[in-house]
């Protein structure tokens, strides 16, 4: 496909929360970078234009957690397939967690992912490296090497540390290099092999429960460590309202703490598992309506700075079994933006703020100059038609995984174009 060197996006409503812009502005791209905003410079001739009348033009979305299943679980999905799904969803940057097989604990694995990403060319993939070797929770990984190879953050995936002491050491070592530690807030013993929120509904259904305390105990411990060490930490995926409240207090006290939430936690609750629908089996679990309301407030006031997809594509078998025996996770790239915009419809937050949670918010958490439309920056752009009705159908999904409880949901905004480094990586055909 011949990509033009110069491109203008005309007549759109430009929303760039990082620069506090929300106006009718044209966008001009030269050699993959943003060249000008507003009127085109005199010497600029666009080889191609996109008419974005009635549409929203914003930075390409940044997803802080998307499992691409490569290397190691290619039967579920691949970097190629999931990059396409991401592009369709307006997502130009994906962060993949370290729990691949092998884990992202050596520069070689980082390099493998980088190369596969380049080959498919549909999305920028930023790996999150492992804090400990093989994610075993005991020995520190070579964090400086991982950072040099391209890891933008480090985590221990979903696995626990051997002890709180090791967790402390890992955080401190990472801070030596200015790397943010992504933490999965879950106390494994309190989780006690549960599969649903420990509440009235799990009690009625006889499903082993995961108490709220499994999350809040971990958050409390990690906040205390952050206070002790002044290490920058990020909570990857909270589910309990109380956890959001604790993080808000910590931020008020100026601790270097951030948090994100998976889009599905802002819409679904434990009431949705009533038919034993395995598509609603997620980890952390769907909690109560009260938790959802508290999470929504935390999104609105910025306590939670980012909404991510927590994308976990699965093959059909993984979900076709009785609820407790199914693998948790939703194939979520294609619903990240629609679910976030639905919050705007439901008046939870404004449109610019919603876009901020998908662009400048994640960028700030990563400490990277992405998710913004400054002159000279990479032209990662997403164009959205806010009046396009569509329904999520399994056969139309680009992800290999069709495991989502949102099948059949009607949405009212759709991505029409996605550009990565000035190249059109997705265009809606209708």
């Amino acid at each position, binding site marked *: 496909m011949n990509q033009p060197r110069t491109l203008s996006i005309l007549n759109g409503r430009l929303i760039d929360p990082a620069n506090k812009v929300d106006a009718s502005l044209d966008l001009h791209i030269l050699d993959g970078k943003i060249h000008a905003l507003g009127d085109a410079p005199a010497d600029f001739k666009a080889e191609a234009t996109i008419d974005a009348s009635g549409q929203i033009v914003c930075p390409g979305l940044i997803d802080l957690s998307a499992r691409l299943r490569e290397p190691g679980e290619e039967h579920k999905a691949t970097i190629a397939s999931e990059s396409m799904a991401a592009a369709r969803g307006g997502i130009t940057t994906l962060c993949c967690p370290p729990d691949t097989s092998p884990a992202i604990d050596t520069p070689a694995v980082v390099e493998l992912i980088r190369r596969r990403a380049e080959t498919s060319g549909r999305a920028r993939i930023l790996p999150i490296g492992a804090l400990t070797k093989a994610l075993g929770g005991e020995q520190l990984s070579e964090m400086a090497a991982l950072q040099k190879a391209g890891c933008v953050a480090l985590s221990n995936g979903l696995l626990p540390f051997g002890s709180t002491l090791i967790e402390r050491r890992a955080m401190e070592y990472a801070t030596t290099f200015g790397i943010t530690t992504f933490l999965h807030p879950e106390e494994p013993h309190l989780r006690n092999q549960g599969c649903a929120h*420990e*509440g*009235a509904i*799990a*009690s*009625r*259904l*006889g*499903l*082993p*429960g995961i*108490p709220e305390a499994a999350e809040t105990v971990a958050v409390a411990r990690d906040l205390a460590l952050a206070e002790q060490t002044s290490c920058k930490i990020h909570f990857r995926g909270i589910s309990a309202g109380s956890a959001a409240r604790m993080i808000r207090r910590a931020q008020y006290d100026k601790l270097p703490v951030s948090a994100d939430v998976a889009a599905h936690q802002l819409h679904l609750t434990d*009431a*949705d598992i*009533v*038919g*034993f629908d395995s598509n609603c089996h997620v980890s952390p679990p769907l909690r109560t309506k009260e938790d959802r309301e508290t999470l929504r407030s935390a999104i609105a006031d910025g306590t939670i700075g980012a909404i991510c997809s927590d994308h976990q594509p699965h093959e059909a*078998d993984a979900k*076709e*079994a*009785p*609820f*407790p*025996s199914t693998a948790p996770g939703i194939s979520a790239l294609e619903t990240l933006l629609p679910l976030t915009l639905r919050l705007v419809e439901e008046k939870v937050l404004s449109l610019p703020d919603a876009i901020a949670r998908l662009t400048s918010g994640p960028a700030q958490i990563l400490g990277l100059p992405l998710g913004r439309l400054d002159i000279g920056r990479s032209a990662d752009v997403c164009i959205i038609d806010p009046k396009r009705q569509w329904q999520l159908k399994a056969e139309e999904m680009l992800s290999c995984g069709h495991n989502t409880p949102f099948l059949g949901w009607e949405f009212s905004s759709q991505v029409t174009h996605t550009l990565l480094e000035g190249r059109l990586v997705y265009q809606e055909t209708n």
Partner: protein
Amino acid sequence: MNAVAQTNNIQLDENGRLRHFLSIEGLSRELLTEILDQAESFAGVAERTVKKVPLLRGKIITNLFFETSTRTRTTFELAAKRLSADVLSLNISASSTSKGETLLDTLRNLEAMHCDMFVVRHADSGAAHFIAQHAAPHISIINAGDGRHAHPTQAMLDMFTIRRHKGDFSQLKVAIVGDIQHSRVARSQIQALNTLGTAEVRLISPRTLLPAHAESLGVQVYHDLQEGIRDVDVVIMLRLQRERMRGALLPSEHEYYQLYGLTEERLQAAKPDAIVMHPGPINRGVEMDSQVADGPRSVILQQVSHGIAVRMAVMSMAMRIQERG
């Protein structure tokens, strides 16, 4: 229609007749009463010389037990045979799934054998619903116990027993004692008692053996046995499993018996004509002492024979009939 009614309507066919028997939840009082009435008819069959009726002759009923159980499996077999059905009993724990065959594959292979009904017991909550959602349309599913979720035939035979002794549920106080948290029997009993309009349903248990938000199940919670069984008409004792000691849920059977074991003396707190029930098998000296288990107020042995009549009723009602034309 709320989500619960909708998803449990998988149990009813388009005419509102019973099609699968998966849980008490979602079934009306009328339907539960019909099951009890049908069971009365079938109870008479056991007293005849020929303990069979030809009702389900030519039908094949398969017992699919992923969890071993001799008692429940035998009563289902007996019930099926008394209906003149052919019975296959498969203990899957031993064979296919240990070789990695998925539950769905096991199901498909069995369907190829032209079965009409599966009676299923499985360790996962929701397993019976899962099988009902994936089984071929002509097959009916009876839940013989799924994880901690439901054991509806046990609950119905308990209701049958209570109705035979006490009649009207609306005046009754019923206490369920023991490990509620891990009990599918208790969950189904609570639902049945509430649907049938029981005046009071009480749970008596230490904190560690109660489910979260227990009151939301429609019960009153007690931690003291004496207080809990005061003036009750029915005492249902649940079985205590050894694993509870290992899981740091209880210190010992000894302390459990001291606090929650049913003795003749403690039973005095209940109504003078109160009946004592237990789904079996009993741990004598833990849940109750032999005096109570074998005493005049115990109806435990009757529960067993009632189990056959109730299962005959459920299987006959759920058996798929051919559409006309």
